[in-house]
């Protein structure tokens, strides 16, 4: 079953001075299966927060649609099943954490002993136990982020939509959040979150949708990322003769030296033998031969930094760029 579907959503904003509208989302499409963790990745200003606000019904799309378990975004049925963490959490500063969660819980339809129990549990879960009675006014950024997560998961929603849940957290906080998300997934909940912290995203997501200038250009699974590197092998050697990289240029994609060791990224499986033989012959010592798995970070940098897009966005072109990356790997 689909927990979340965003279908060809377009959204433009009026510029500050001119009356011309600037199109921020140019046909965003994505979906999340129930029980899946879907990451949302893209550079600053790509349109992640805008997409998320449309999913929550805070913004209306110019065209296209968003549905939550089949219900239209922004409606009561959708709202009942969603938990949301805004990008910059601001909560009523005059309330204590407990009062604040009480307020949120009642709005989500909880009450009585059930609500009180949930509040206690949730506060402990996000690690704010000692601060339950304090006013939010005095909370640090990381504490507010935790309070924000607490209100999002309080009513145990079927779909969690989190806008940068790791921002402002210390390493312990990041682990806490990761553990909470993994636990929720284990209990069949669906999670959709944006983040710039790639290792966290890689560790958590079943799939990652990559957005660039208002269009989702790729949607990759962890398997696919691994497969991108299939056939590529990394060879670590010591005592390479100068000029080795040059000699092997046809077989090796990149060569890096550090601390007397050389890391060679071999283009294809069948070249490995040739490379190792060359190394032995030139008097080098082979230390390690491993399969190379690119990280999400490499995919991300590959998509964005290495070949900056020339001005406008042509979805066809961006897709071609993605295909190019795969083509080169094979």
């Amino acid at each position, binding site marked *: 079953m689909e927990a979340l579907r965003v279908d060809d959503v377009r959204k433009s*904003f009026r510029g500050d001075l001119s009356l011309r509208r600037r199109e921020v989302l140019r046909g965003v499409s994505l979906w999340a299966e129930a029980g899946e963790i879907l990451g949302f990745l893209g550079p600053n200003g790509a349109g992640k927060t805008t997409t998320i606000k449309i999913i929550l019904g805070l913004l209306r799309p110019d065209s296209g649609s968003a549905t939550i378990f089949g219900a239209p975004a922004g409606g*009561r049925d959708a709202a009942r099943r969603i938990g*949301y963490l805004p990008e910059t959490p601001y909560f009523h500063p005059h309330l204590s954490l407990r009062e604040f969660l009480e307020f*949120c819980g009642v*709005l989500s*339809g909880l009450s009585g002993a059930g609500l009180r129990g949930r509040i206690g549990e949730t506060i402990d879960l996000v690690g704010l136990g000692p601060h339950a009675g304090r006013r939010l006014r005095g909370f640090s950024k990381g504490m507010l982020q935790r309070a924000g997560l607490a209100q999002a998961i309080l009513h145990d929603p079927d779909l969690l939509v989190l806008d940068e849940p790791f921002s402002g957290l210390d390493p312990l906080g990041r682990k806490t959040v990761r553990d909470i998300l993994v636990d929720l997934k284990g209990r069949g909940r669906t999670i959709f979150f944006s983040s710039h912290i790639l290792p966290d995203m890689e560790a958590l997501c079943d799939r990652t949708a990559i957005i660039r200038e208002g269009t989702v250009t790729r949607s990759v699974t962890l398997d696919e990322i691994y497969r991108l590197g299939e056939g590529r092998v990394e060879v670590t050697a010591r005592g390479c003769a100068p000029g080795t990289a040059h000699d092997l240029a046809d077989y090796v994609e990149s060569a890096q030296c550090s601390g007397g060791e050389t890391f060679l990224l071999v283009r294809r499986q069948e070249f490995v033998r040739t490379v190792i033989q060359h190394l032995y012959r030139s008097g080098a010592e082979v230390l390690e031969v491993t399969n190379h798995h690119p990280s999400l970070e490499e995919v991300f940098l590959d998509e964005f930094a290495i070949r900056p897009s020339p001005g406008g966005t042509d979805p066809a072109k961006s897709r071609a760029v993605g295909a190019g990356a795969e083509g080169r790997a094979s």
Partner: protein
Amino acid sequence: MRAIAAVARSTFRETIREKLLFLVAAYGLVLMVSTWILSPLSVGAARDKIVVDVGLAGISLFGVLTAIMIGGALVHKEIDKKAVYLVLTRPVSRGEYLVGKFAGIMGAIGSLVGLMAVLLVLIMLAGRVEITRVLFAAVALSLVEIAVIAAVVVFFSTFTTPILTSFFTIGVFIAGSLGSDLRAFAQKFGGAAMQRTMDAMYFALPNLTVFNLRSEAVHGLRLTAFEFFAAVLYGTVYAGAMLYFAWLVLRRREFA
């Protein structure tokens, strides 16, 4: 209903934790100082009238000012700072949110008015001023007037800044307090266009003079139940219409 109550309670708390009590203290002080200063000048009945007049005027003015200052900032701040995200992304309609906000603001200002009324009665008891039923009717209608102004504030604050909201609402308050005076003035001295504008304003703006029972209270005049309830009904309908317009705005509004 539970959602409305939750929003109202939170708004009430927020308002109470702003330093509202200082306003009550200021009111008491102004009232006492003005009566002590004025009382040697006048004796007996005249002094009593001053206490009642100043006391009721103070309640109305402080209540309206609080509604304008606190109400406008409250709604706008919540939208501006995005606290409203947490409410509107839950199964709460925008109408429920509005009604809850309004109820919370009125709850807080109602308590303020209540405290000021108690203070006034205490001062009157201390000064052996006669306490009439019209006095309580006057306080009650002040509260209705404040509700009308608070609804106007909520309406404006769904789409403008607190400063403009205050500006517009003060305009509505002044024009509304003049009641038919402006219209009568236009009918006497203005041209046709002026007359039509004044007619339009007279019907669009709230006629706040119907909530003013100060002269009745001061001079001990009679007040019929019909007059009283007609004023209450008028205020309720007007405030309801304002909240309805606010809902029309908020319903379509996006939160960027």
